[in-house]
C-alpha cells in the first residue's frame, strides 16, 4: 500500500514536470524570431500584411502570450497538440503514426543492452582477467568515444553494402507479400543494424557498471555469508550477488532514456528509420512549430514514463526503496 502511495506521489510529480516542459518549450518557440504565419507565407511564396494578419488571427497568434500558452496547455490536456500545416495533419495523429517505430527501436535496444550488459558484467566479474573482461573494457572505451552515427555508417558499409546481409534503409520492404510472419521477419531484418548501433552505445555503459558492481558485491559480507552457508556457486552468484548488482544498473538505465532518444534521432537519420527522430529533423528544417512542440512533448513523456517504470522496477528489486526505511 505504502509502495503504491509513494508511487502515486511520483506519478503526480511527473505530471507537474511535464507541464513545466510544455511551458519551457512553448516559451522558447515564442521567443524565437519569426512565427507560424511567417513560415506559412514563405511556403506560399510570400504574402502581404493583410494575409499575414489574417493567418495570425486564424491561429490565435494575435492574442497575448499567456492566452496562447493557456490554450496550448488546455489543448494538450485533451490530447490536441495542434495542426501541422506542413504535413497537413493533426500533430497528435502524425506523432502517433511515427511513435511506434521509435519505441520499437528504443525499447529493443535498451532491453537488449540491459540484458546482455548484465550477463557480460556477471561473467567478466567472476574472471576479472578473462577475455570477456578485457572485451568489456574495450567496449566501454569504444562505446563512449565512437560517434553513434559513425558506428551506424560503418555497420551499414560492412553489412549492407560490402556483404548484403541486411537492408540499407527503412523499416520494412513494401514489396513483401505474405502473412504476419513474413512481415515480422522483414521488420526484424531491418531492425538488426539500427538496434546494434544504438544498443552497443548503452551496452558499453551497462556492462562496465554491471562488472564493477558485481565485483564489489562478490566481495561483500553477505556473499561471504552465503558461501559460509554452503550454497552452490550458482546460488551465491545468481541469487545473492546478481540481485544486489541490479539496482545500480537499473538506475543508470533509467537515467539514459534521454540519451537513448538523442541516440535514436541520429540512428534514425543514418538508417532512414521512419520514426519520431526523422519527423523531428524534417519538422525542424521546415520550422513546423506545432510538430516540433509536439515531438518535444512526446519525447519528454517517453523519458518520464521511462523514469517511472525504472522507479517501479527498482521497487520490485529492492524492498528498501520507497518502503518504511
Amino acid at each position, binding site marked *: 500500500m505504502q509502495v503504491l502511495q509513494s508511487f502515486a506521489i511520483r506519478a503526480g510529480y511527473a505530471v507537474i514536470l511535464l507541464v513545466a516542459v510544455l511551458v519551457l518549450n512553448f516559451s522558447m518557440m515564442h521567443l524565437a524570431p519569426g512565427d507560424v504565419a511567417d513560415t506559412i507565407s514563405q511556403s506560399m511564396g510570400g504574402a502581404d500584411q493583410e494575409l499575414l494578419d489574417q493567418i495570425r488571427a486564424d491561429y490565435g497568434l494575435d492574442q497575448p502570450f499567456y492566452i496562447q500558452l493557456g490554450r496550448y496547455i488546455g489543448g494538450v490536456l485533451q490530447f490536441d497538440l495542434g495542426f501541422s500545416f506542413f504535413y497537413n495533419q493533426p500533430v497528435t495523429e502524425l506523432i502517433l503514426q511515427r511513435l511506434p517505430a521509435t519505441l520499437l527501436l528504443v525499447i529493443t535496444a535498451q532491453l537488449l543492452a540491459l540484458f546482455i550488459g548484465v550477463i557480460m558484467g556477471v561473467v567478466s566479474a567472476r574472471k576479472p582477467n578473462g577475455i570477456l573482461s578485457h572485451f568489456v573494457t574495450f567496449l566501454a572505451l569504444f562505446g563512449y568515444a565512437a560517434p553513434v552515427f559513425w558506428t551506424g555508417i560503418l555497420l551499414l558499409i560492412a553489412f549492407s553494402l560490402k556483404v548484403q546481409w541486411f537492408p540499407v534503409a527503412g523499416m520494412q520492404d513494401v514489396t513483401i507479400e505474405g502473412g504476419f510472419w513474413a512481415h515480422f521477419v522483414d521488420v526484424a531484418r531491418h531492425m538488426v543494424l539500427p538496434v546494434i548501433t544504438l544498443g552497443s552505445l548503452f551496452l558499453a555503459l551497462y556492462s562496465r557498471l554491471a562488472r564493477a558492481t558485481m565485483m564489489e558485491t562478490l566481495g561483500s559480507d553477505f556473499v561471504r555469508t552465503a558461501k559460509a552457508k554452503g550454497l552452490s556457486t550458482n546460488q551465491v552468484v545468481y541469487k545473492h550477488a546478481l540481485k544486489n548488482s541490479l539496482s545500480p544498473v537499473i538506475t543508470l538505465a533509467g537515467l539514459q532514456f534521454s540519451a537513448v532518444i538523442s541516440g535514436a534521432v541520429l540512428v534514425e537519420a543514418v538508417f532512414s528509420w521512419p520514426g519520431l527522430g526523422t519527423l523531428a529533423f524534417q519538422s525542424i528544417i521546415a520550422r513546423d512549430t506545432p510538430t*516540433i512542440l509536439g515531438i518535444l512533448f512526446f519525447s519528454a513523456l517517453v523519458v518520464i514514463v521511462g523514469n517511472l517504470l525504472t522507479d517501479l522496477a527498482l521497487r520490485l528489486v529492492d524492498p528498501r526503496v520507497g518502503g518504511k526505511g
Partner: protein
Amino acid sequence: MSLIDPQDTLPPARSPLSEAWEMFRGNTAAMFALIVLGLIMLCAIFGPWIYPTDPFDMVWAPFSPPGVDGFLLGTDYLGRDLLAALIHGSRVSIVIGLAAASVSIVIGVTVGALAGFYRGWVEELLMRITEFFQVLPTLLFSMVIVALFGASLPMITLAIGVVSWTAVARVTRSEFLRIRELEYVMASRASGATNSKLMFRVILPNALPPIIVQAALMVGSAILFEAGLSFLGLTDPNVVSWGQVIGSNRQYILDASYTVTIPGLAIFVTVLCISLVGDGLNDALNPKLRSR
C-alpha cells in the same frame, strides 16, 4: 578484517599534485593519450597555417581516393580536399568541445555547490530543476535551439552547454554534501568564515578531483554532441567541422566510404584520448579507487 597493515602501504609524504602526476605518468595508456591529444591541439592551432588549402575550395575531381593524385586523404563529392577539411575542422570540434564543456561546468558547479552547501529548500528547488533538465531530450532540444535561434558557433556552444550540465551538478552536490560535514569545514565555520569563503576557498578545492574528471568527460561528450548536430546539418554552414563532413558525404558511401570513415576516425580518436586521460586523472586523483 584488514589484511594489509597500513604501514607497508603508506608511501612517503609528497605534495598531492606531484603525487597525482607521478601516478598519472605511470599510466601508459593515459600518457600516450595525452601526447596524442597534444598533437591534435597543435594541429588545431597551427594546422591551418601550415596547410592553408581552403576546405571549401574545389581543388580536384570528386572522389579521388586517398594517396592518389597527390591528395593524402583524397577528395570528397565536390572535389574538396579532405585533409584540409580535417585540419580546419579540428578547430571547431575542439573549440566547441572546450567552450560547451566550460558552460556546462560553470552551470553545474554553481547549481551543485549551492544545493550541497545550503541544503533545505534551496537544494530541493535546484535538484528539481536539475531533474527537469534531465527529462529534456537533449539532442532534440539543442537541435531546436540551433534551428530557431541561428546556427552560429556561440549558439551551438550554448545549446550544448545548457542541456549537459546535470551530471556535473550531481557530482558537485554529492561532494559538497560529503565535505561540508568534515572536521576542517566545521572548524573554519566555527572560526567565523563567511559562506562564500567556505564554499569557494574551503570546500570547492577539496571537491575538485571528481569534478575535474567529470569535466574531462564533458569535453568528450560535447565534441560528440557537436559532431551529432553538424552531422544533421545543424551547424554554421560557413565553417567546416568533422561531423559536417560526414553528414554531407554520407550519401556517397558506396562510391567513397573514406570520406565518412576518416573524419569519423578523427572524432573517435580525439574522444577516446580524452576518455583515457579522464580515466588516468580518475586513478591519479582518487587514491581510494586505485586498488580497483
